[in-house]
């Protein structure tokens, strides 16, 4: 019924192109297209789309500024956090679009005929969410090393001055690994559970029962994008701070 792993559609140059990859490409294209549409011919008194974008960017910027109180770090951190938010939001909401997850072709696997969809919601692929989590954690490490310097940042994790600090350093190291797992599984679990829920609801009472669950999915998609971006922000902030 629902497969855990994404289905490969074609192989290009030896690399498998899965249906979730197609959806993420589509989401990225839409984000780029809408952004380009908003910023061409920018006016001092903005039109509608530019106005919406300016409102959103100003709100996000003041939110990031309130969390990180230094102006320099805000300018470094703001593009990454906002891009993560917008991209995950569009990928989540694109999964609810008509045509995504419904149009496909029949394939026979080991005696059974299964429907392989052309598009599948992007974050139902653990590879996708793991990639985003790696980006977040790596960005936090790079920002920490850039702000504090290699030695001071390394002394947060490996510290031989004190037995207590040594153990705290080991715990910090383990907690960084746990962040990877936690980030990827939170987003993957929410989106995959939502997809399974919609399929099961459509199986029981098609056209009517999926409706309240789709409303829930809209909300959950927004909250998960928000949580991913906010957690990235908080981890970027704590990476620039000294160990206590």
């Amino acid at each position: 019924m629902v497969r855990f792993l994404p289905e490969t559609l074609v192989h290009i140059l030896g690399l498998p192109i899965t249906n979730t990859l197609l959806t993420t490409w589509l989401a990225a294209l839409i984000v780029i297209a809408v952004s380009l549409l908003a910023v061409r011919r920018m006016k001092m008194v903005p039109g509608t789309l530019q106005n919406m974008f300016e409102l959103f960017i100003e709100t996000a910027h003041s939110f990031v500024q309130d969390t990180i109180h230094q102006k320099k770090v805000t300018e470094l951190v703001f593009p990454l956090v906002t891009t993560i938010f917008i991209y995950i939001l569009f990928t989540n909401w694109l999964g609810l679009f008509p045509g995504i997850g419904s149009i496909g072709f029949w394939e026979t696997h080991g005696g059974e005929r299964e429907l392989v969809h052309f598009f599948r919601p992007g974050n139902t692929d653990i590879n996708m969410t793991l990639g985003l989590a790696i980006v977040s954690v790596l960005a936090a490490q790079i920002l920490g090393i850039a702000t504090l310097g290699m030695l001071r940042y390394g002394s947060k994790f490996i510290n031989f001055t004190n037995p207590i600090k040594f153990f705290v350093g080991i715990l910090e190291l383990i907690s960084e690994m746990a962040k990877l797992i936690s980030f990827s599984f939170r987003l993957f679990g929410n989106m995959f559970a939502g997809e399974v829920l919609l399929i099961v609801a459509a199986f029981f009472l098609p056209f009517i029962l999926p409706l309240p669950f789709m409303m829930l999915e809209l909300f959950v998609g927004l909250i998960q994008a928000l949580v991913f971006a906010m957690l990235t922000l908080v981890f970027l902030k704590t990476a620039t701070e000294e160990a206590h």
Partner: protein
Amino acid sequence: MEEIQTAQNAFAVALTIGLGVLAPSIGIGMIGKGAMDAIGRNPEAAGKIQGAMILSIAFAEAIAIYALVVALILKFV
């Protein structure tokens, strides 16, 4: 033999998700209660409290999602 295998599998799946969401749901309720108390005491700070509440609820829900992922792996793999 295969029916016993599938029956055990179904049992494990149901037990995993059933027990796994017990503690996170209580946790989310407590977070909500704390947030309500705080907003009731200080309605001006409602925006900040709401922001911190959403973040904490997402953390608590993530644990329930881990249990869900284990249940899904048991069922579909």
